[in-house]
């Protein structure tokens, strides 16, 4: 019980502060490629105030089945992205994981994988989940590789569920079970 549940080797997960998140989201959402990697929504840049208010509304009425975090770099406390678990409240012990590293300069440096390891520990050791699920897009090979590295297994492929940049793409669903995660801990 000695080490902090939410601290990894490179990053820690911290609470979401609306003013700060709004500023960062306004900056990150100018990058359409980032938005297209994140989710199905139409990519649109968001203003600082708009994003702050949106974040405030979400935090004022916290949803009991959503655990959002900001990702903070250990070496200089910089906030580089955000992550969370959604749909945690169900009788099946399943939830949906998401992550985004908004700071482009931080891509490919292991921060995302480290944050994923931290949030899996939170899911299995604090929320006592049985499994964690995620969705990732065909054109996001970097993320898919990172998820495989931390132990997620591909569970299927929804054909042509995305329409972006002039063509259709598949969407993958991945999952990791509690016992797979435990085994992965010993291997690392």
């Amino acid at each position: 019980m000695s080490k902090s549940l939410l601290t990894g080797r490179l990053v820690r997960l911290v609470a979401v502060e609306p003013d700060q998140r709004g500023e960062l989201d306004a900056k990150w959402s100018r990058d359409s490629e980032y938005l297209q990697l994140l989710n199905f929504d139409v990519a649109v840049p968001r203003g600082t105030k708009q994003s702050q208010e949106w974040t405030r509304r979400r935090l004022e009425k916290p949803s009991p089945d959503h655990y959002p975090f900001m990702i903070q770099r250990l070496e200089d406390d910089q906030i580089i992205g955000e992550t969370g678990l959604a749909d945690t409240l169900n009788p099946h012990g399943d939830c949906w994981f998401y992550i985004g590293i908004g700071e482009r300069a931080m891509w490919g440096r292991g921060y995302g994988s480290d944050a994923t390891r931290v949030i899996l520990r939170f899911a299995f050791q604090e929320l006592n989940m049985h499994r964690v699920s995620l969705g990732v897009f065909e054109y996001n090979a970097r993320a898919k590789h990172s998820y495989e590295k931390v132990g997620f297994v591909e569970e299927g492929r929804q054909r042509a569920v995305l329409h972006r940049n002039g063509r259709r793409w598949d969407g993958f669903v991945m999952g990791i079970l509690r016992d797979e995660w435990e085994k992965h801990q010993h291997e690392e």
Partner: protein
Amino acid sequence: MNSELFEGKNIRFGAFDPERDAEAFSKWTHDTEYMRSIQFEPARPLSPFQIKKQLEEWQKEEHEKLFFFVIRTRTDDRAIGEARIYWVQWNHGTAMGQLGIGSPDDRDKGYDGEALDMLLQYVFEEMNLHHFAINTVENNTARQQLLECHGFQCEVRRRQAIFRDGRYWDGLIYGILVEEWSARRSGLHE
């Protein structure tokens, strides 16, 4: 051109009418097997009052992301089930759906197959979607057969995603593409 989207051979799709339908919907929520076949959330009985509230919420919150139909018999206009389309991603032309025949006496009469045909026609010819998906669970073999008979493929097997009756079951996501649906349909009509 068959533009009769809401009228099938034996059933029709109609709007939810609180005064007429809340009683029937409430009755179905007391049937846990039925509720388990249309949702992953815990089955819980809801009163007609709660049903009305829930439908009101759905109607105002997600009017462009949720399409909700009451399945009625054409002979006596009785509510026998529900069909819905949710999580509509207009920019990608994709959505999820669900359907069920609520009253036990109306099951095994082929109404679910007819409703699924109508749902498919609606998503592909009215909403102009490209891909349509329906969730089910490993132990619901009747539902898997129904989906496979209508041209769906099992695209995702989420291992041990549903815990029921003391054990884990895989969660299945079935999907069908518009070209698969139209090819099948022209094949059936030949």
